């Protein structure tokens, strides 16, 4: 199951789809950060840094699959 990826074109420069996804996922993750803090997400894990990285990878994966 594959779907076509659209390239982003900024002023004549082609940006690879993965870069677009990675940046979009980073923006979404940064928006999520205050919510994660308020919901006590960090306290659920022994290694919060790995948990946060996993959240980022999940968002990136979902973006790649869905869009």
């Amino acid at each position, binding site marked *: 199951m594959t779907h076509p990826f659209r390239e982003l074109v900024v002023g004549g*420069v082609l940006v690879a789809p993965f870069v677009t996804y990675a940046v979009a996922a980073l923006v979404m993750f940064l928006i999520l950060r*205050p919510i*994660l*803090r308020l919901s006590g997400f960090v306290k659920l894990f022994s*290694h*919060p*840094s*790995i948990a*946060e*990285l996993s959240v980022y990878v999940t968002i990136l994966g979902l973006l790649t699959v869905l869009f």
Partner: protein
Amino acid sequence: MTSEFVMSVTTGPIPRQVAGVPFASWAFGIRVWIAVVVALYAGFWLELESPLSAAITVGILAVPTRGQALEKAGFRFFGTMIGVVASIALIGSLSQARDLFLLAFAAWVGLCVYVAALSDGFRAYGAVLSGYTVALVAIQMIDTPDHVFDFGMQRGAAIALGIAAIAIVNDLLVAPNRHLELAAQLAALHRRVRDQAKAAIRGEATDPTATAGLLRETAALRSEITSLVTESSSGPTRSAAARSTAVALVAQIHAVRVLKALPVDVDLAIRDRMTSALEEAGDERPPTDQMTASLDWAFRELLRRDQDVREGLAALRSGARPARPWRTPFYFCHRLAAEAGVRAAIWLALASTFFVLAGWSAAEASLVQLTAFIGLGAISPNPRAFTVGALIAAPIAAILAGVLDFLILDGVTEFPLLALALAPFMIGAAVLTTLPNQVLAGIGRLNLIFILVVAGLSNPQTYNPEVFLDSALFVCLAPALLLAAQFLIPPVSDERRRQQLMASARREIDQLSFGQAERYAPEEAMFRDAVRIGQIAGAGAPGPQHRVVLDEALTLFDQAAMIRLCDASLRGLTEGLLARLADQARRALGRRHVQSIRRAASDIQEAAPEDALARAASGALQVASLVMERKGP
């Protein structure tokens, strides 16, 4: 961190050591090595034009904690973007006029050094990076100006890759968080401030250098406090808590200084009760009924600041929002920054002239290194000492890179062998950076980058001895040439820095404005003054003359802070007679006239003996008059 400070925090368990180096340092070294290998592998796999830049990025971002690495990464990325834009502008407008181009390039680097001197920590690094990125991009592309955009994009991609490599490796291998150690450092500083407070209650004299040292160490934590933001999702609140703690700590140091300025004419029993009130942290009622009004005010102030510090530390440890969100403003001197910028531009212009006259075709590589040394030296405490360090580190790195290329690898083309061969060099250099010896740490930091630069790793690796010798020679030539330029035009001297900083402190106290909304709260302004005292303490070797300067700086700090505190408490008096008396008091404070301040204090006290606000303002004014009266320790 001074050795004195290290001694004061040895209360915790001794860290586990392997071969005389803490386990945490080895873990850091292994993380750096893995990240370098990951970055190189990904760079080769993606067929980047300069996979080495990704590995060098990892070497540059090799800092022991996650938050700091991410913050530095952010500034590295944005600094590079600004530098690439500046390169395109310079190449686009001046690529046909070599001399003008080099002149404009020197001016740009000077401007970046000036901007870097206006801030601290990784922000300053970002500023100088945007300066020497122009060297990396525009100077290297000077003969092929139409490729400058492609080259800039490639460099951006390589840097992004390096950042991703170190970020993922730090996350997966659980690089330590900074906030626990920072809380321990702040708590240790707090203990030392309380010791000084107890000494002040006992009436013992303390050394001004010790107080200046405390202020300097507290202010020096500023950039690390900022790095907490990027550490985790609770980072911004922890950073705010740490900021408030640091500001409260400076305010407590001021309260101790004020207490020392007052005549503590109470008997031993009262002194003991004061000490235990400080130790019991608010559980015991302070014996204020047997004190003079001024001593009462100063002691309450000390207890209040102590309470603020403890609350801030608790908030930092628990990740809660602090009760008082204070900022930590940075002090900078425009004139000193401009002088540093002009010197940087002149050094670069001299070196460029030398290279133009020498007429070497590969000289741009050396000019690139030299620009990087100018930039990195500008954000180190002593530019010339940095250049000397680079001059020592460069040949060591060249030899090590030669050993790596021609003895260990020697024609190997398999990536796993390259990864294994890099291990001792990367881990060794990274472990060196964590040593308390500043010279060794500096050599380690430079080697981590130089070894990669000189070894010139590419796919496929050429193993060309001529190329290696060229790059080794130019890496060693750059610091030598810069040192020559710095002997010709010396960097801003410590004496000059001290004079300028003291002059600005004197100017500011004369120009304090009253009665209007200030840019900073009194406590924030105290922190800013503490940053300046830290800069004064850092300029010059300890000695009797330095002591005199520090003593004056501390006296100005006491007075300015006291005037601001008085102004803040006078702002509560807004009605009729009291408002007029408050205006009189402000005028007296502005002139720093002891008798007038004292008269204003008693007038306010008599005008409204029952008013709590008036009593507080009167107490503050009395203390201010005593602080102004005090000459020297």
